[in-house]
């Protein structure tokens, strides 16, 4: 997983990224800013909780996009865990597509498939 995140760290505008397994283990991460791995795991777990709560409400979702000013937290859940990326820009569907077109092959090489 480290190799994948070494490359993910090079994605333009990416501040941080992480993958947390379904069991809550921080399997891989990278950060181009001072965000600790503990914080990344906490954020990813919180995103898992939000998705889980929505499933319980019969409104299942696989992807979340949260705007914090001009920065954006993107997360997507797969069967083996949750990937999240913190970007230094607003996003739209085209940006999401661009992001995951780069991330998906890297994660799939590590045996992780997102929805």
């Amino acid at each position, binding site marked *: 997983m480290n190799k994948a995140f070494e490359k993910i760290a090079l994605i333009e505008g990416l501040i941080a990224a992480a993958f947390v397994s379904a069991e809550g283990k921080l399997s891989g991460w990278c950060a181009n800013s001072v*965000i600790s791995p503990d*914080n990344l795991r*906490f*954020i990813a777990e*919180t*995103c898992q*909780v*939000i*998705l889980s*709560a*929505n499933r319980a*409400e019969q*409104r*299942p*979702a*696989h*992807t*979340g*996009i*949260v*705007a*914090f*000013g001009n*920065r954006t*937290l993107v997360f997507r859940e797969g069967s083996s865990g949750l990937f999240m990326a*913190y970007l230094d820009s607003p996003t*739209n*569907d085209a940006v999401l597509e661009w992001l995951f077109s780069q991330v998906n092959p890297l994660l799939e090489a590590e045996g992780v498939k997102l929805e």
Partner: protein
Amino acid sequence: MLHHALILTSHREYAQAMRQGLLKLGDAQTRIDVELDPLRAMQLAPQQYELILLDTVLDAMDGLQLLLLIKQQVPAGKFILVSDSGDEASRAMAYQSGADFFLERPRTPEAFALAMEAIKGLFTTSRVDEPIQQDEGEAPVVRIADIVQMRCLSGDSVLLMVRSQYQSGDIFIFRGEIYHAQYSGRSGEAAFHDMIHWDGGLVRIKAVKLTHIPPRTIEIPYRQLLETVEKSDVHGPDIPQTDGELYVVSGQTPPDAAVLSVMQEAPPREDVAPTFFPNPELSTVGDIPLPRVDSHWKVNLTGELIEGSQVAEPERCAFITSFIYRKLADVAVALEVDYFSHMTLLGPHLQQVLVADNMGVRHAVFDTAWTTEDQRVQYVKWCCEQSF
């Protein structure tokens, strides 16, 4: 004595001055925490504080809303709301929101000293959750109406700190007239009427020098006010007829036939009853039309549903929105950023958009099959217009 307090403000210099002042009300063990970020304050355990001072206007958050939120977690805590404006409306709002004391931010050393005296007076009253003990040296149980009448007849200016078995409040007498009364959640004439009935009118009272004159909330002469009270005693306790519900105050057991004396009217709800779209007044604010949504609703900062359309299970909807809202507050703190402005959740069948402002969160559900990105963006813009 003060042991542990929190100052929640966006004014750094004032916070330091107030902290020094509060430290003097305690001893060497006293701890006064200062928090400049309301989002971080929400992460603190408020139960640890006996006293919380917070500004009416905080960065990115309404202090009154935050007060309501924290008060739910620490009902027995003392809350002082600090405002840059000492106007009547702000004061009334503060007490209606559950503040124990309203303080206009002191700007001179003299005003600061008076404020500290007032805080000291507030805090030296016994905690409301302590049962009355006949300790030596404690104020005797007296008839509240007699004390008020005596002080008014004497033309006194005095603050009567009233303590019943389960509550405490203040009655301000200025130059022989009842000027203002307050206890947690109520002020003015209504507060006086309630207080006069606490424990059947037999309470403990501590009279202290009036250090500041509050704005007048009781206009009628004291004789007339006391006569009204006497009449209501003859005809039974005065229970105003409103839309509020009656409930037994937690921890109180009706001691005798005067059962109504321990039953109080629920405080009037500050929020309006839920309104439902399409509401012409609400849906036409701004130029952007509301896009086609399956359902949408809005909750305030205390998690209450205040608007909605096509909301099948209002309580569950309000709950999930509040839940996400709180979780994203945690995320914002971890990322060291301001609160989220909007969130999109994409699912196979449904898409959701949450849009936050400083008064609450709007939440919309879209059908994935019929929804485009433009519609989601339009909803965010529509919400922004409604906030203005």
